[in-house]
């Protein structure tokens, strides 16, 4: 569903649904934007949060928009995928830290439900080791520094060097990078050959500034 040749800006939304509706309304109607229902938003509103985002973004771009459900699945892969696909998600995430059985089940269920599978490598030193163990590859591998890690431990870095290595070994998989929040981080992400850059913090902190922020960041997506 994502175009291999295109670059994408994924914006994660975590504020209240009322605020998110206003924020989405002010976004530029660009197909390079991917809308994410963040984990806290899903845990707060459940399926109806995902469905709402799908509707609002669809109204904005006048076609079916791409929505990522940041499920961070850890167990019961099939049940969770079924639920978010039913709610209108175009992709869902699973933790790379989950049991291999869960990741395999998650990828299989995503294929069955016709949505993209994203495996989030947060807190994993060697994403390769996980990918090697899987029966099938996910659609997207997410290299990720968690927000709590970033805040409390500045020296941990996003492993940009992994992007080329993963793409070199597993040609078809797309790479997404999460955890860099500044325009400079986003430039670096794309320079290192990532396909998707995920951001949320500046939007979360200044929802009223959503339109400007999105314009600024979108300029960096070539």
């Amino acid at each position, binding site marked *: 569903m994502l175009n291999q040749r295109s670059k994408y800006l994924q914006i994660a939304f*975590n504020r209240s649904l009322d605020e998110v509706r206003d924020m989405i309304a002010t976004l530029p109607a660009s197909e390079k934007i991917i809308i994410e229902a963040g*984990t*806290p938003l*899903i*845990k*707060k*509103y*459940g*399926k*109806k*949060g995902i469905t709402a985002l799908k509707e609002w973004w669809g109204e904005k771009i006048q076609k079916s928009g791409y929505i990522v459900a940041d*499920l*961070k699945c*850890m*167990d*019961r*892969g099939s*049940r*969770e995928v079924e*639920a*978010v696909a039913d709610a209108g998600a175009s992709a869902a995430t699973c*933790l790379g*830290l*989950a*049991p291999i*059985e*869960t990741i*395999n*089940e998650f990828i299989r269920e995503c294929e069955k439900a016709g949505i993209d599978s994203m495996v989030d490598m*947060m*807190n994993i030193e060697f994403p390769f080791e996980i990918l090697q163990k899987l029966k099938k590859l996910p659609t997207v591998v997410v290299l990720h520094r*968690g*927000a*709590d*890690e970033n*805040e*409390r*431990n500045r020296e941990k870095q996003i492993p940009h060097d992994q992007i080329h290595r993963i793409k070199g070994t597993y040609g078809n998989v797309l790479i997404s990078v999460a955890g860099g929040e500044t325009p400079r981080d986003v430039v670096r992400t794309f320079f290192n050959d990532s396909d998707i850059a995920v951001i949320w913090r500046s939007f979360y902190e200044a929802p009223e500034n959503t339109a400007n922020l999105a314009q600024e960041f979108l300029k960096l997506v070539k």
Partner: protein
Amino acid sequence: MILEKRKKYLHVALNSTLEEAAEIISQLPVSDRILIEAGTPLIKIYGTEAISQIKEMASVGTYVVADNKCADLAAREVEMMANAGANASTCLGVAPIETIDSFIEECQKFNIDSMIDMMNVESALAVLKKLKKLPDIVMLHRGVDESEFSKEKQIPYYQIKQIKGNYNVLVAVAGGDTIREVQRAIFNDADIVVVWKNFYQSSTETAQLAGSFLKEIK
């Protein structure tokens, strides 16, 4: 900590739908030794409403666990779960240490119990050693997907005594779905035994298990 060290608890996890949750809750005996969990799928499907509704369905004062399986943004999640009425919240043991530390701090701030879920963690002791403060409860279990697809993986009962010998925490383990399995977990020194209704079981069976637990395990 809200739970008492000398008591043994049965923790009933609800994972299907809120309708089924209501059905099971209405049949459960009333006791402070029965804990009720809003399972991860319920939270992801219904949001925090799953917790507040279960809190409402259950008899007054029931201890409700939010199995939110926090992996990041702990402060945000704990606040949400506590505000929805949870008495305990869960965090993944595989999460970054910074997240687990923040999770435990926030749980203390909101006066709810912190549970660390050691699913897919090789050594629970190694995780506990790295933490700034201990959680109230350590949960040992195998995931549902793991158990289904790799039958040889077992619940690590031997770790219960290891953990309790070294740290002042309660230990919860998944206990299968018969009273015999629950007794086995208690015999191995678990403080809390987690059970859930399998799709092939009736709600009545789950409620009966709770009845047997109260009768046979003091």
